[in-house]
């Protein structure tokens, strides 16, 4: 998460060339006071939601429910993370949901009908995603058809493709233990703690090295106290999460124990770190923001805009493929509805709730996590509420609006203060 701090979305005022403003913690507080809250509004909306559900249904706060949250939200979050790249350019991919379905079907077919090992199947699924993304991106960037239309066509075609792959509507069961483990099994508690220690240490190291390097070159660097604060916060929050996830949550522990961090958690974390790194630390990421912010300026700066566009679609579709694998793992089956119904809208919604703009130029991998968490909490909480179908729809819509409203009001304050 360290990388997120310096994304274009949040120009770090502290890194001033004049040394007049030095204390970056003061600067951060002033920024918050001034209305530029970064991820705070989304986190705040999330807290409001969780509190409401916890009050309404105490079982919301159980360890098992906490663990469920991760597996329930994983597929949407991963798809949303891919969509961020396309949205960053001001494009859209309506077919991301069914892309995940098609790739899940490819996985299922290679796994069961062709009987190949799990890693070949996963590879096949992701390669399918890459191919799909290349196709979509080329149609958008080179032929110049609006992405809405291209991906609407793909949305239709991929439903047909999924039907063909699962032979006109049958369900394919997935029995491979490795694939099933992704969304259904947990890390051994010890490994969970080990991972925790590793992550916190790595984070601290990266932060410190950066600050030291900058200081050595005479550039304004974050003071040690700030870094310590951030690392500390991460350590505490992640520590509590790992602790809770390592609690026993089986209904009949004497019969079979159920503990540990779900395997999807490190998977999502790895993807988050990867894409955050790409977006904020590589030239490719920089170019994505540039094309999204002002495609003409990017073109004049010599950036190969078409290539950037195509890459974004490739990333989006291959992340959709990963999402499809997770969904297949969770359902231990693939059918023509995998990736259908609400998946796409929820995934785009997750990215937008997290703060990604549909107009391009603004978005982070973390947004998908935050927004995905909001969506997952709503689905999870609503599942505990036992409403009838109609009331459930109504309340879900209302709750979503509430979470987004908290966030919007906070941002509005930021805009009023003249910051965008």
């Amino acid at each position, binding site marked *: 998460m360290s990388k997120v701090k310096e994304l274009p979305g949040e120009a770090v005022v502290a890194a001033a060339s004049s040394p007049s403003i030095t204390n970056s913690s003061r600067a951060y507080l002033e920024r918050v006071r001034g209305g530029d809250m970064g991820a705070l509004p989304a986190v705040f909306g999330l807290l409001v939601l969780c509190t409401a559900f916890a009050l309404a*249904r105490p*079982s919301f706060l*159980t360890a*098992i*429910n906490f663990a*469920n949250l991760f597996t*329930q939200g994983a*597929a949407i979050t991963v798809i949303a993370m891919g969509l961020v790249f396309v949205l960053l350019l001001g494009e859209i991919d309506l077919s991301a949901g069914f892309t995940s379905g098609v790739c899940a079907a490819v996985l299922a077919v290679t796994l*069961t009908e062709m009987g190949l090992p799990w890693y070949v199947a996963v590879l096949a699924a992701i390669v399918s995603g890459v191919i799909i993304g290349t196709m979509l991106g080329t149609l958008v960037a080179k032929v110049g058809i609006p992405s809405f239309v291209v991906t609407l066509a793909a949305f239709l075609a991929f*439903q047909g493709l999924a*039907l063909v792959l699962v*032979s*006109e*509507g*049958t*369900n*394919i*069961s997935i*029995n491979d233990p490795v694939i099933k483990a992704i969304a*259904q099994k947990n890390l051994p508690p010890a490994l969970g703690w080990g991972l925790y220690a590793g992550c916190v240490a790595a984070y601290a190291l990266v932060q410190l090295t950066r600050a030291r390097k900058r200081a050595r070159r005479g550039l304004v660097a974050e003071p040690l106290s700030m870094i310590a604060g951030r690392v500390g916060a991460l350590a505490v929050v992640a520590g509590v999460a790992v602790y809770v996830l390592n609690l026993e949550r*089986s*209904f*009949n522990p004497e*019969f*079979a124990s*159920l503990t540990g961090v779900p395997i999807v958690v490190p998977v999502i974390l790895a993807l988050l770190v990867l894409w955050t790194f790409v977006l904020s630390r590589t030239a490719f990421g920089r170019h994505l923001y540039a094309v999204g912010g002002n495609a003409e300026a990017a073109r004049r700066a010599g950036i190969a805009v078409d290539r950037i566009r195509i890459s974004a679609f490739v990333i989006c579709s291959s992340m959709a493929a990963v999402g499809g694998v997770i*969904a297949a793992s*969770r*359902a*231990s*089956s693939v*059918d*023509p*509805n*995998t990736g*259908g*119904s*609400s*998946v796409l809208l929820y995934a785009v919604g997750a990215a937008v709730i997290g703060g990604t703009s549909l107009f391009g130029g603004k978005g982070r991998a973390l947004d998908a996590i935050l927004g995905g968490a909001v969506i997952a909490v709503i*689905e*999870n909480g*609503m*599942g*505990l509420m*036992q409403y*009838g*179908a*109609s009331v*459930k729809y109504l309340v879900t819509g209302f709750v979503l609006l509430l979470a987004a409203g908290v966030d919007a009001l906070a941002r509005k304050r930021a805009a009023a203060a003249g910051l965008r």
Partner: protein
Amino acid sequence: GGDSGQTGATSTAESSQKAGKIGVILPDSKSSARWETADRKYLEEAFKAAGVAYDIQNAQNDKTAFQTIADQMMTNGATVLMIVNLDSGTGKSVIEKAKSRGVATIDYDRLTLGGGAAFYVSFDNTKVGTLQGEGLSKCLADKKADKPIVAYLNGSPTDNNATLFKQGYDGVLKPKFDAGEYVKGPDQAVPEWDNTQAGTIFEQMLTTEPKIAGVLAANDGLGNAAITVLKKNNLNGKVPVTGQDATVQGLQNILAGDQCMTVYKAVKKEADAAAKLAVALAKGEKPTASGSVKDPESGQDVPSELLDPQAITFENVKDVVADGYVAKEDLCTGDFAAKCTEAGIQ
């Protein structure tokens, strides 16, 4: 599927010069695999055997598309229209339009209320629900469950058939809830029969009510979603789950002991009965049906062929294979081979 219907149509065009053309509209391909894999196949076989031109299309659960397809079939010269309506309203408007053009109509699998089709061929949907309710009761009795909590995983809230299934199993289980024999647990509908959402819904049911002892899932897909969650919590096999459609997945779950029962609808019989009527109508004959059903909306008697669904448990899985509905090589893969032998499947 493919466009084999087209080839069938041309190859038989001359031989049945005076015979009309039959249009069939199937409802969707996602809520259940039967429409594309079974119904289409059996209907095509029957029509080809009779040498009648035909056109089979699927409305993909889209009402607008359903009406458009009906229009287009009539434009293409269909003289008999066999529909599986998506809801009675659109069904009715299609039947009325057909009638006004002198096109004969058959309600296939679902009765169009107030539509007044010439014939109705179906399984009894309420009966399906009744079998599910009875099946679950039996499994719970086998497990000797004491005041078991029963959860409902209903079909799509916008699907009228889901309402009929629910009527059926409620008819069996509600008296038991009222008598205090069973305890009514969470009761939720799954939008669009979506298996992924069903997983989340059931997971949350289990979080609120960890002591769920029986699950009435409206079809095999929903049943499998529930079983996956139960497996994760090491409860599979201990909590009976129902299903419907006798899919490979459902039958495998039954063989594995994770699912208690499914409902098998002998689609071939249904398709054959409907095809017979349609072919006769297309040839300008006046066929008759064995029974009739009273349309609750119009009060008229609709001539009907009604078929009985069959409950499938471990003991009679072999019946489904023997019927040719599911192929042994699809069912008895890998670990299931042993179970197949055990269940007496050859």
